Structure formats: C-alpha cells, structure tokens
C-alpha cells in the first residue's frame, strides 16, 4: 500500500515540477520523466577486468534502469573473499559495501542504477577492495570538435554560430542556445525575444544567427543538445570588431604605396633633368650607348621621339 502512495506522491511532485515556467536560470530544461521508475527500459553493461583499472564510456539518451556488472579475475593473492564497493563520483553509494566471494576464479559485482535525470549521470566506480576498480562514465552524447577560435564579425553585420553533433552519435531531440552573462549566469535565447536572434535547428546541426551586431554582443555563447536524459553543452566565442580595425593597416599600406610611387616619379624627373643638361654636353655618352645594341638603326630612335603621346 505504501509503495503505491509513494508512487502517487512522486507523480504529483513531478507534475508540479513540470508546470514551472521554462524561463529558468539553470541550463537544460530537460522535460522531467513522467514514466514511473519501475517501467523504465533496462540496459546492461558488463566489463571484465584483467589488470588493475579500466574506464568504460557509456552513452545514454533516455532514462533507463542500468545494470552495471563488474567482473575481476583477481590477482596473485587469490583471496576467498574481498570487499566490494560502489561509488558515484567518488562518494560511496549507500548500502553498497559487501563481501564478494570468489566464484569460478573471478569476483562479481552487480548493481542496478536508475538513471533518470542529469544528476544521475556521472562517474560510477565498482571497487574490489583497494586493488582493482572499473569506472563507468555515464554521459549523454557529447558534442565533439569544439571550435576554439572565436567567430569574428563587424558591428552592424551578422554572425552565424553553429554547433554540430557528429554523425556517429545519435541526434538530439532539439537544441537550445544560451548567452553567458557575467561569471556563470546563463540565459536562454528564445526566437521570439527579439528580431535580432534567429535559431535554425536541423537535426544534427543548429545555427544561431545574430543580426545587427553591437559591441555588447561579444562573449561566450553556449549551445545545448537536448536529450531525454540531459543536455550536452558546447560553447562558441563571438568577437565583434569595428571596421576601423582593418582600416588601420590598409591606410598604412596605401600611404606606403603613394610614397613609393612619388619617390619613383620624382627620382625619374630629377634624372631626366640631369640628363637633359648632360645630353647637351656629352654626345660621347650617346655614341657609347649605340654600340651596346647588337645592331641599331639611328632612324629608329627618331621614331621613338616621334611617339610621345
């Protein structure tokens, strides 16, 4: 009788929780599971340890009753009994301390965990005395290749930030975007909030388009891939610069070019002035130049002069 009351109160509690307005300050408004714990799907993960430790990554999408099974072949001591222990994130799980006998030349530890929401995810460890342990890292699919270089755009222009879930990983049910505000306060960006933000969700990809950028738009943006169990986050940095920034090196180059051209033209002018005075005096110069060329018809040079446009 008390079990069904417990169930009912749990369900009422869950109902109340889900009625809260979604404008929350904590990330990941994952819809709370309305399925009672007994009716969760089940899954099993077993690991056989040969050495001293091992880490197993477990990717979860939905709430599940997960059975974790550890098998250890033992070491040279071959004790008849050994203490077995479960930990979650380093802290001992209540009532998990037990004595494990050796059966068929191995030790077995098995426990069922209800993984329902984000708090249930984490690092589960089964320990055999202090001699061997296996880590199970329970997590929702993580977003790979996080872009470390910031997205740069200009004031008044628009910027596109994308997040992608790899093909090998399952598709999230939806995506959410957040902007870092202060140290770790985050806000959800809704598409209806302003005309400046636009979110395009296409299965594995999501795009956040921020238009008419202003200086204050710069900072860290977070995208969250929503799964039933939790939300995986990734971040993108946005930098907003004014058009004066590239203008500075540009103007510097233009000035350098103008100076260079001026030098060349002025030098030529001064040379031609020098030569026009020299040409009056030194006809010997001209005869020397003529022997340079393999053959030279004097008439040709007069046609050169004719060609001044």
């Amino acid at each position, binding site marked *: 009788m008390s079990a069904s009351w417990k169930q009912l109160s749990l369900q009422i509690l869950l109902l109340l929780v889900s009625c809260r307005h979604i404008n929350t300050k904590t990330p990941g408004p994952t819809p709370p599971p309305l399925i009672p714990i007994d009716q969760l799907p089940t899954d099993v993960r077993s690991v056989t340890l040969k050495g001293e430790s091992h880490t197993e990554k477990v990717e979860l999408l939905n709430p599940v009753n997960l059975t974790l099974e550890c098998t250890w072949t033992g070491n040279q001591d071959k004790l008849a009994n050994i203490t077995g222990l479960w930990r979650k994130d380093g802290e001992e799980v209540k009532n998990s301390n037990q004595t494990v006998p050796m059966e068929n030349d191995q030790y077995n530890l098995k426990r069922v965990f209800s993984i329902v929401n984000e708090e249930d995810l984490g690092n589960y460890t089964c320990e055999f005395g202090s001699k061997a342990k296996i880590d199970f890292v329970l997590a929702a699919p993580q977003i790979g290749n996080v872009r470390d270089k910031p997205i740069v755009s200009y004031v008044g222009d628009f910027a596109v930030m994308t997040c992608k879930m790899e093909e090998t990983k399952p598709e999230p049910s939806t995506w959410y975007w957040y902007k870092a505000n202060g140290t770790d306060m985050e806000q959800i960006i809704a598409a209806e909030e302003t005309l400046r933000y636009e979110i395009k969700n296409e299965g594995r990809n999501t795009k956040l388009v921020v238009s008419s950028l202003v200086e204050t738009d710069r900072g860290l943006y977070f995208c969250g891939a929503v799964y039933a169990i939790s939300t995986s986050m990734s971040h993108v940095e946005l930098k907003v610069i004014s058009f004066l920034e590239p203008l500075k090196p540009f103007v510097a180059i233009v000035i350098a*070019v103008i100076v260079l*051209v001026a030098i060349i033209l002025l030098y030529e002018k001064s*040379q031609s002035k020098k030569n026009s005075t020299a040409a009056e005096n030194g006809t010997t110069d001209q005869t020397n130049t*003529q022997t340079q060329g393999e053959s030279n018809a004097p008439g040709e040079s007069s046609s050169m002069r004719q060609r001044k446009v």
Partner: protein
Amino acid sequence: MTKLRPKAESQGEGPDGGYGWVLVGALFVSTSLVFGLMRSLGIFFVEFVQYFDESAQAISWISSTGLAAQQFFSPLGAALCNAYDTRWVVMTGGCLAALGLILASQATCLVHLYLTMGVISGLGWGLVFTPMVATVMANFTRRRTLVLGLAFSSIGLSSFAFNPLFQLLVELYTWRGALLILGGLSLNIVPCGALIGPQRRSKAPAKVVSESGVSCASFLQRASSYLELPLLFERPYITYTLAISLLNVGYFVPYFHLVAHSRQVGFSEYQAAFVMSAAGATDILGRIASGWFSDLGHFRLIHLLSVWTTLAGVFIMLLPVSSLSGSYAALMVISLLYGFCSGALTSLVFAVVPMIVGVERMMGALGLLQLIESGAGLLGAPLSGLLKDITGDYTASFMVAGGFVVLGTLTMVTLPHYFSRKDPPPPKSLSPEDPDKGLHAELEQMHSSPSDMNDLTGEVTNNRLPEDTYS
C-alpha cells in the same frame, strides 16, 4: 642612367642587364600579386560558403570569373599599351585590381563578388600581366627565358607565403577586413608599373601615324592594328595559339583534381595536400631551371617546349596509373616530375612568341594568345569534372587531359620550319626601317654553335662597361 637606354632597345633587342633587372623585380612582385593572389583565394571560399550560404560551385565561379576576365582583357591591355604609355596602363590596372578587392569587402551578396572580385579585379589584372611580361621580354634577349622563369617562380613562392598570411588576416579581421587589406596589397602593383619608366618598349607606330581624324573606319583600323588582329591570319601564329590552347585544356586539370584523386585512392588529407605542395615546389624549380637551360642556347626554344609539353602530358596520364598500385611513393614521384615539367614549359610558352611574330608585335600577340587560350582553359575543368562524374573516378579525366597536352605538342610540330636547326626569321614588319635584319642577325648569333656564343658574351661584356658608368 636610364634615360639613354630607350635608344638601345628601340630595335627590340634588350640590353640584357642593368635596369632590366629592376623590371624583372617589378614583374616578380606584380605577377605574385596577380596569380599568386588568385591561387590563394581558396582560403576565402570556406568563409564565403559559410557567410553567403551558397554551394561551393557557386563560390568557385568567383575565381573562374577573375581568371577569365584577366585573360579576356589581355588584348585590351596590349592594345592600350600599343596606343599609349605602358606605365600608365599598368598603374591603372593596379588601381583597378585594388578597387575590385576593396569593393568586394563591402559585398552583401554573391553577385557583388562576381562583379568586383571577378570582373573589376580581373580587368585590372589583365591590364597588368601582359604588358609587364611584354616589357620585360623586350628588355632581354639572351636571358629572356631565364628571366621569365625567375619572375614566374614568384607565383609558386608567393602562394606559399600568401596562404598562411591570408589565413591570419581572415582570422583577425574576417574576410571583409582581409579583402580590404588585400586591396591595399594589390596597390603595390602601381609602383611596379611606375618603375617601367616612360616609353619602355619599342612599338613602331609608323603605320598609324598617317591616320588622322576621328572617323569610325580609321578608329577601327587603328584598334585592329593595336590589337594585332592581322596576326590571326598568319599560319604560324594560329598554329602556335591552337597548340597552346590544347595544352591549356589539360594543363590545369591536375591542379584541380590531384588532391581529390589522392583522397579517393585512399590517402589521407595531409598526404594528398603534401603531394600538391611537393608538385608546387618542383614547379618553381622547373621554371627557373628550364629558363636557365633554354638560354644556354643548345637547342631551339620550340624544341625544348615540345619536350617539356610531351613529358608533362605523359606524366599527367601516368598519374592515375601510378596510384593504381596504391603506392604513395609512386604517386609522389610522378607528381614531382609533373610539377617540374609543367613549371618548365611555363617559362617557355611566352618566350617562344617573339620567335614567331617578332618583338614589335609581341605585346599584341601575347594579349591575343591569352584571350584564345582562356577559352580552352574554361573547357578543361568542367570536362574533367564531367568525366569523373560519368566514370566514377579520375582516371579518364587525367587520361584525356594528358591526351590534350600531347595533342598540343603534335600541333606544335606542324609549325613551319619546325625541323630546321635554326629559328626561321620572324615575319617582315611593316615599318620603313627594316629592323628584321638586325633581329635576324641577332637570332642567328643566338642559335649558332657555342663557340660563337663566347664571342657574343665577350662583346656584351665589353659593351656593358659603358653602361655601368651611368648607374
């Protein structure tokens, strides 16, 4: 020092030294800012695809338009240089190229980019490249091919430098700021043009002096002479242009598809990219080495060109074969050899032109050549892409590309006097002072036995001393 020089080169033989090397430096810089820049525009394409949300094919049309505009406006550039002063044409070209890039930094849609980066900058580049090449070629005779090889090596070297530089600029200022700065960099073409100095090439305009008045017929006649349109009716020029066009169809295919082919055969991204870089490195080597070797004078330039084009065609055809075995070393070796041959033939393609048409008509000839070969180049990439789509891999594309290159060589063989040991005299020019005698004599001296060469070297060295007193 430099003012008396124009008299010496009015015959079309360059003094082969002194101020000519300054012009080579100017050509080096301007070529790197034209083609080196064009080759490194790939960095921007990723940004454009993201910003404008367009397909990669639509974005790639930007650089195709730029290249096509550069080649299309080459005859215009050549004609303007024939009509007016080269330096102002080049300086205007530099300003236009810079303007195109600066305007592109303000683009809000893809069409803006086509018009600015494509048409305007392409027009600017067209006004720069052919005139600068023709000017330098007019200033050198015996070291012509070496000088061209050195100048064109700038393309490979600058794309090594530009790729990381552009990447940095894009990261700091995004593509808009980077394009603005590129526009500023392109303005450096203007001092290169200023270095040309007034009236630095010989073009006998005697035939057009008689025209006066601004009637339509006289304008058309002048335009056609500036554009050197009569060249289109001469068999040697037509043959050569056809050969180079066929060459162009296949020549660029490895640049487009080698990386994709390597990835398809099964090599990693880095391995494929490294193959391309290695081919680029041997390309630079090939340009300089072939330029130096050609100027030694042991063989006719046209023969050397045929050798390099045949080898390049063969190696292109061998590229898919080498990767059949799956051996990375084989693919690398063939790519290195291909890079060397393709660089080697580049230096020679332009140097052969004055052999065929004479130095006075070189400017217009180069312009027309660029225009005609551009059509062929536009054909090559889509054709090879189509073959790949039909057959599923790149073997057919490379085979056909190599085939076109070899076909170009065969066409070259049909040039008149191909099999003679000495170059034929270039066609008689129409100017009253017959410069051909001088040119003919100079060519004979160039391609005679090496012992004669030493005499010539001695002569030039002696003649160089008075030059030095002016510098």
